[in-house]
């Protein structure tokens, strides 16, 4: 057959196939459906034959390409052929539909490459112009939208990016599938969305339950595992897309499939599908894909350019300066990530310090280079650099430079020269920008060495190729430089799984001094080798060493595997396996960087280490330091011996003991650091300061809690002295008259002695009841002052120190913390719904009603109980408070006894002392009653209410909804018990406390700790400004602390914020003449400022007035009368107070106090 006839025959054959296909399609009634069915039922060979015919036919072309270059977003992704076929058919269908447009695709790829270069170099105007060109030639594309979003975000920020995206999304015709993808593009571009966060959101929002989700994940930048079926369905979705996107996504799906499934069938399908485009489209992505399928059609001479090999050879020969120079030279011509990497590796390995080639200051290449340098040199801040690079790379999943970057980062974690590459590594190796020798190792699992590697191995003079060949083929080939043989043998042994041999070789090489870079690289390999041989201590020793040198290098170690092996050995009873110091360090590193799931074993390791050293306390470790590297001992002290580990030592039996030990440990670590010539880090000094402050605050709180029951007896004494003296003299006169009425002269003398004047005595024979009345009056006056003086008495102090907010907050606190109780709504007076628990479960309407009822009843029971305690029981017993537990009522018999006890005392002061003794005894008895009431009544009632609530909830709610809530009712019980114990402890006679002089911040922090414990749903942020030189007199501590407590309490209660942040700024400044206390707090935005302004005016007008003082013994309200009492009567100071609203809408209290006597 002649050439012409053969051509005619082929044409006829194709035409017949086309006619047959057309007949099949039109028979289906609907051509779209018909096309889908045809794609499904025909053979791939038939598709290859017929597709050109389809594309030549105007009608069928419109079906295959609904809009190849859409002019508006409305038509992007419209129409398309529904239904999917086999992988083979789908690949052939898509590739064949692209085939006639190979020239356009090549043109697009060239423009895209220019765009990438311009973007990396920060030439944003050029980027705009290129995007316009691409838009003009190829219409609206997903690639164009994605590139624009990323460009605008990088150049103009989020608002501009959002504006652009909203404009795109506002086009109603945009296919919903791709509309959704664009929303991910915009989210991903946001500066604050890290790669990890993006992946988490994508995995939650797009679980891999469909081919669509797989495609979306790929498009967003993740690398899901994808099988043949999923790939074929994903490919079928591409028939909606325009030319450029169909090509890019078809290639991406194929690469992801090959990375996931290296089977011969998949390789054959991919190779057969893509072959026709290989020689027509200038894209190394297709060539590499085909090489991965063991098909070498396109010559790969352009791979691994001469200069790249030369740079790698120089590196292999340890001529790092030359390697760097070649790489930098490459880089200045073309901003490639691989050249950058080679240069940076040479710089780090050779310990060189060379500037990067000049790039524009705002070019993204500058930040990539800076971060990659951190990563490659194992800098301390490399982990943050990795996060930034990951973010950059994942944002550009269609850019080959981004794949290069991701591959470099992945290799840093998993060296594919010695371990099988991950799916992600293979995927990005297939998409990477430049051809690098290292790809040889990455593509080995695909069997690509048959053709891909040959290109490199055919360069016999290259030392780097010789090294790679030796490693992959496990024999030392010629051209491996002598200086590299040792390392090559290590890599060979590791790759072949000869870990014993690798360990020995690594130990030998590490015995000689190495650069930091080599030490870290080889150390990483030694940890792996020792772990594989079961030498866990050896692996931990090297790991601990690396942790000390570079935390980042340590994050790349197989720490989890090591930890798992150590735990298994310990569980198997291998004695002492956790005892080495290095093991504690490794556990700690794992806990801080990977997971907290082995924290218990971290504490075991800590305890085992101390036991192995015969030490009780870690702070005793100093004498042992010579046995361990000092940096490891310092690490151990600083990081392992932290409170959450120390508290698991049975030698430390309290929080206080743990804190003391931590403080000692820090001092020890500091000493060791100083001995090695390093200063103590400021965070350690700060930690000690905070520990000490915490302890002082806790102790002060305890002291103050136990001095709440207080009577200012000196104040009372002064107040009543004159009155009682007079009364006592008169009483004594009666007494004398009664005892020696016959001796008037003697009586006269005695009176003269007492009052200094001589009186004439007239006997009028006063009745005995008068003497009793006089004595009773004095007793009752003193008792009244003791119990009820608004300035000095017990009731005023009970009100100020206990009843005013303290009891209710302390007893309600545990319920508030567990969200079991709500407040009443101001308007309705009804308890608010418990939104916390309502939000956490689905209730039916009847369940919700019953739930609300049960919770409101519980809140009411608790509040009623507290109300009864404060309003009925914690009162001075009187007609108005018949249940008051502070009983100072004096019966006739008691009065007679008092007369008998006191009547012989001549001095009225002794009488007053006796009375105070008696009243303290009565107080003590009352306090016993209060404590008993709290334990036997209040606590019991609350526990009963809890049980009733739990019982109701179990009946009302299904178990799944009730579970967490019931748990809360159980968890609260010990907290309630503690709260009740604490409140009971307040009801004890105050011990004579000897308070040390103190800095004002102690009072501030003590008050803050108390109020924070009451308002657990508020996040109270504080700032304190106190003059360093101020030292307050110890005796003032309780009063100043109470002053701050009332101010904090006011801030927390009246700020208008129920849950969330409350900012408080406080200060104490002044000199020996005047002290100024100030406290300002933020207010809810919903606060009625007009109303507040009225309150401010009222407070300023009324503060300290007589009418206000009536409220000292009354709870509720602002607490300002109590502040007045504290300042005026407890601290005895002249003062002035002013409240105001600041310009920034904060509530401000300023108090000026006469400093006399307040300062130490």
């Amino acid at each position, binding site marked *: 057959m002649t050439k012409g006839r053969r051509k005619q025959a082929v044409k006829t054959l194709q035409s017949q196939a086309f006619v047959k296909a057309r007949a099949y399609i039109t028979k289906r009634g609907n051509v779209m459906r018909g096309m889908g069915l045809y794609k499904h039922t025909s053979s791939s060979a038939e598709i290859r034959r017929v597709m050109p015919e389809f594309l030549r036919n105007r009608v069928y072309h419109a079906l295959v390409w609904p809009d190849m270059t859409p002019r508006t977003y409305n038509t992007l992704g419209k129409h398309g052929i529904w239904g999917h076929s086999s992988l083979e058919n789908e690949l052939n269908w898509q590739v064949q539909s692209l085939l006639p447009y190979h020239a356009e695709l090549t043109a697009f790829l060239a423009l895209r490459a220019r765009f990438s270069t311009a973007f990396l170099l920060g030439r944003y105007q050029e980027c705009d112009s290129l995007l316009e060109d691409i838009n003009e030639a190829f219409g609206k594309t997903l690639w164009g939208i994605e590139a624009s979003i990323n460009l605008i975000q990088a150049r103009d920020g989020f608002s501009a990016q959002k504006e652009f995206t909203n404009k795109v999304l506002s086009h109603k015709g945009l296919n919903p599938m791709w509309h959704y993808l664009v929303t991910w593009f915009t989210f991903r571009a946001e500066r604050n969305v890290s790669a990890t966060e993006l992946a988490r959101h994508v995995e939650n929002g797009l679980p891999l339950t469909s081919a669509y989700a797989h495609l979306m994940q790929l498009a967003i930048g993740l690398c899901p595992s994808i099988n043949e079926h999923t790939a074929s369905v994903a490919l079928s979705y591409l028939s909606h897309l325009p030319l450029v996107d169909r090509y890019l996504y078809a290639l991406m799906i194929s690469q992801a499939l090959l990375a996931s499934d290296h089977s011969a069938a998949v390789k054959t399908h991919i190779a057969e599908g893509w072959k026709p485009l290989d020689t027509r489209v200038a894209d190394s992505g297709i060539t590499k894909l085909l090489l991965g399928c063991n098909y070498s059609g396109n010559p790969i001479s352009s791979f691994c350019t001469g200069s790249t090999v030369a740079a790698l050879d120089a590196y292999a020969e340890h001529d790092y300066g030359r390697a760097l120079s070649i790489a930098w030279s490459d880089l200045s011509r073309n901003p490639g990530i691989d050249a950058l990497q080679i240069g940076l590796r040479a710089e780090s390995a050779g310990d060189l310090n060379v500037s990067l080639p000049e790039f524009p200051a705002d070019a993204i290449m500058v930040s990539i280079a800076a971060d990659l340098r951190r990563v490659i040199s194992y800098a301390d801040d490399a982990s943050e650099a990795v996060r930034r690079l990951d973010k950059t790379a994942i944002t550009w999943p269609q850019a080959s430079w981004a794949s290069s970057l991701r591959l470099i980062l992945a290799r840093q974690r998993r060296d594919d020269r010695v371990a099988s590459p991950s799916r992600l590594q293979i995927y990005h190796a297939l998409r990477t920008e430049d051809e690098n020798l290292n790809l040889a190792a990455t593509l080995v699992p695909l069997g690509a060495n048959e053709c891909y590697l040959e290109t490199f191995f055919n360069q016999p003079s290259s030392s780097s190729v010789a090294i790679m060949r030796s490693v992959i083929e496990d024999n030392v080939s010629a051209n491996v430089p002598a200086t590299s043989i040792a390392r090559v043998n290590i890599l060979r042994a590791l790759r072949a799984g000869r870990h014993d041999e690798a360990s020995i070789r690594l130990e030998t090489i590490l015995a000689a001094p190495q650069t930091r870079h080599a030490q870290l690289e080889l150390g990483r390999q030694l940890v792996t080798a020792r772990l594989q041989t079961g030498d866990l201590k050896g692996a931990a020793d090297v790991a601990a060493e690396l942790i000390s040198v570079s935390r980042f290098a340590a994050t790349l170690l197989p720490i989890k595997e090591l930890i798992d092996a150590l735990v298994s050995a*310990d569980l198997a009873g291998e004695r002492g396996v956790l005892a080495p110091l290095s093991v504690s360090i490794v556990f700690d590193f794992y806990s801080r960087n990977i997971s907290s*799931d082995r924290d*218990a074993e971290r504490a*075991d390791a800590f305890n085992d280490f101390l036991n192995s050293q015969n030490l009780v306390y870690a702070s005793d470790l100093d004498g042992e330091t010579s046995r361990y590297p000092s940096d490891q001992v310092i690490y151990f002290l600083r990081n392992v011996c932290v409170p*959450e580990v120390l*508290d*698991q030592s*049975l030698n430390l*039996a*309290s*929080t*206080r003991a*743990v804190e003391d030990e931590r403080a000692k440990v820090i001092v020890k670590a500091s000493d060791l650091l100083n001995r090695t010539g390093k200063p103590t880090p400021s965070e350690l000094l700060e930690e000690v300061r905070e520990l000490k402050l915490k302890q002082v605050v*806790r102790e002060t709180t*305890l002291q103050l*809690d136990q001095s709440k029951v207080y009577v200012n007896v000196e104040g009372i004494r002064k107040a009543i002295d004159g009155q009682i003296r007079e009364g006592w003299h008169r009483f004594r006169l009666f007494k004398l008259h009664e005892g020696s009425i016959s001796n008037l002269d003697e009586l006269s003398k005695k009176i003269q002695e007492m009052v200094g004047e001589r009186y004439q005595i007239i006997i009028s024979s006063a009745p005995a009841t008068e003497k009793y009345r006089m004595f009773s009056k004095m007793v009752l006056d003193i008792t009244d002052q003791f119990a009820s003086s608004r300035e000095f008495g017990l009731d005023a102090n009970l009100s100020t120190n206990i009843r005013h907010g303290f009891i209710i907050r302390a007893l309600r606190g545990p319920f508030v913390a567990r969200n079991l109780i709500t407040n009443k709504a101001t308007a309705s007076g009804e308890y608010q719904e418990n939104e916390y628990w309502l939000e956490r479960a689905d209730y039916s309407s009847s369940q919700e009603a019953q739930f609300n009822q049960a919770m409101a009843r519980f809140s009411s029971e608790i509040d009623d109980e507290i109300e009864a305690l404060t309003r009925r029981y914690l009162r001075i017993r009187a007609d108005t408070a018949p249940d008051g537990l502070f009983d100072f009522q004096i019966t006739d018999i008691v009065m007679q006894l008092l007369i008998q006890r006191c009547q012989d005392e001549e001095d009225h002061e002794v009488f007053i002392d006796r009375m105070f003794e008696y009243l303290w005894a009565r107080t003590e008895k009352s306090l016993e009653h209060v404590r008993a009431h709290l334990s036997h009544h209040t606590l019991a009632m609350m*526990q009963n209410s*809890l*049980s009733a609530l*739990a*019982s109701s909830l*179990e*009946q009302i709610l299904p*178990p799944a909804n009730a*579970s*967490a809530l*019931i*748990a809360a*009712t*159980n*968890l609260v*019980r*010990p907290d309630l*018990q*503690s709260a009740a*114990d*604490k409140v009971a*402890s307040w009801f004890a006679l105050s011990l004579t406390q000897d308070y040390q002089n103190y800095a004002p911040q102690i009072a501030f922090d003590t008050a803050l700790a108390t109020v924070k414990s009451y308002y657990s749903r508020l996040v109270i942020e504080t700032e304190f400004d106190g003059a360093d030189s101020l030292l307050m007199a110890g005796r003032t501590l309780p009063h100043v602390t109470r002053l701050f407590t009332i101010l904090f309490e006011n801030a927390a209660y009246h700020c208008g914020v129920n849950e969330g942040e409350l900012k408080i700024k406080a200060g104490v400044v002044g000199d020996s003449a005047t002290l100024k206390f100030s406290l300002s707090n933020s207010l809810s935005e919903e606060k009625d400022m007009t109303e507040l302004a009225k309150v401010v005016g009222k407070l300023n007008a009324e503060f300290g007035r007589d009418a206000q003082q009536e409220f000292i013994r009354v709870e509720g309200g602002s607490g300002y009368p109590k502040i007045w009492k504290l300042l005026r009567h407890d601290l005895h100071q002249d003062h002035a107070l002013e409240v105001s609203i600041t310009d920034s809408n904060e509530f401000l209290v300023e108090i000026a106090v006469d400093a006399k006597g307040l300062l130490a």
Partner: protein
Amino acid sequence: MNVLVAEDDEDKLEQSCAFLSRWRSPSNIVSAKSLQSTLRAITEQTFDLIILDMTMPTFDRTLAEEGGRPHAFAGREVLRQMRRRGIETPVIVFTSFDRFGEESDYTTLDQLKTDLHANFSNYVGTVQLKANVDDWHESLKEMIDAVLEGKIND
């Protein structure tokens, strides 16, 4: 019979001790109210039985001691330490909860029971105290019977 009751809830502690005294009259009941005091007790004394709460603070609470860190799985930690130290005293977990931990370490009671059975040979079982059901006495009695009958009769 020497029994350790580890429980931080005073009310529950009283209930379980009273129940034990009434029913078995053990020669000695030791109580512990935290993870630390429980661990100290098991390392310092030998017990025939341990009644163990699952959720406890690190230290015994007092007025001066707030208890340190709360441990949602204090009971499991006690069992783990017993296993490490080769202490094989039978342990009955006595809890009011049907769920433990939060978020990443969240575990239901059933999952926890499975975990304890799988990992600790001296774990006997769990008795749950519920607010509206009063059958824990029977459950606890049966469980103790099953473990100690022979030993006590001796």
